[in-house]
């Protein structure tokens, strides 16, 4: 009975995520079709925008497919040591070109020096990447999208932040309820489907970790807290 309930919940979540990804994919596909039409009409373009739109779309599809493979790991993921700094650096590098093509910029803000944390690096990487993509689309101007880490009483808080998107806990709860069924689940923050946020939330759920509203310096964003490991801190 419990197993059936779990499967039904998983299937609902999968449909929800698939709807969000499908909704998102309309955008890069529309760019491509429009560019083809404009090129046929004699306009000349740099291929960068199309390339970045395709890259962003593929990253989201990959993150969704990755979630599909780990969602069934009922015994839990194998945790290992990872450096948050290098993980975020890698995510920022992957997002940089996409951000530039949308007149946004990705910045790293790692406040202090931290030892390794116990996590599942691939899942955390996919979640941060998806979240970063959602923020780049939401911001779409010169305001930076910041990947940040800071210490709190409960551990290391790592997330994606921006100056011009103020997310509240109510908005986050509402967005989770609307995800997959509404084109714009976070209207005050973004005109987009924010599918990256929805996928990040699902990935972190498997980790398991919770995506929460957080502040970093003067910016607002979405983050998770990784509990410090006293043994690792000694390394």
């Amino acid at each position, binding site marked *: 009975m419990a197993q059936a309930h779990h499967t039904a919940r998983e299937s609902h979540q999968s449909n929800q995520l698939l709807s969000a990804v499908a909704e998102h994919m309309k955008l890069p596909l529309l760019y491509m079709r429009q560019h083809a*039409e404009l090129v046929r009409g004699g306009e000349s373009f740099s291929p960068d925008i199309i390339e970045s*739109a395709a890259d962003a779309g593929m990253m989201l599809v990959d993150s969704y497919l990755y979630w599909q493979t780990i969602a069934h790991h009922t015994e839990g993921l194998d945790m290992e040591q990872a450096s948050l700094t290098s993980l975020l650096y890698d995510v920022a590098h992957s997002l940089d070109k996409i951000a530039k093509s*949308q007149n946004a910029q990705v910045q790293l803000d790692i406040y202090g020096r931290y030892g390794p944390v116990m996590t599942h690096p691939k899942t955390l990487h996919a979640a941060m990447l998806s979240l970063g993509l959602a923020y780049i689309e939401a911001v779409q101007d010169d305001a930076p999208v910041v990947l940040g880490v800071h210490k709190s009483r409960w551990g290391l808080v790592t997330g994606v932040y921006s100056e011009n998107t103020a997310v509240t806990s109510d908005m986050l709860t509402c967005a989770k309820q609307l995800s997959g069924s509404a*084109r714009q689940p976070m*209207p005050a923050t973004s*005109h*987009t489907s924010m599918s990256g946020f929805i996928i990040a939330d699902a990935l972190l759920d498997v980790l398991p970790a919770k995506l929460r509203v957080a502040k970093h310096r003067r910016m607002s964003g979405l983050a998770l807290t990784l509990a410090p490991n006293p043994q690792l801190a000694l390394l």
Partner: protein
Amino acid sequence: MNVIIVEPDKRLASNYALALTGHGHDVRTATSAQQAIHLTDEQVPDVILLELHLKKHNGVEFLYELRSYADWQDIPVIVLSFVQPEKFISDESFLQQLGVKEFLYKPGVSLQQVTAALSRVVRPLSI
């Protein structure tokens, strides 16, 4: 024709603007409802192309704001959205009352079709 495109995605706005200027239209773009009101105030357009999904104030709020000014009651609006019309609202007359002349489903129309819709909505004055 003087056109305002209200489109939050700058890349799409740029594509629509390119297509319309190619047909000799004078195009200005806004990424938010507030910016669109400001542009309308600067110079009243012949037609507005409007995406309903905007950040903060949505397209319907923009339409209410626009129609609250006597001088802007008759500006024709073409909705160009990612939402299929039947999913957005069951009563189409609601949008018609707000001066929406056409409702185009974005992924379903080419740039050429958007340009054609403009010509249908704003016909040249016959003398």
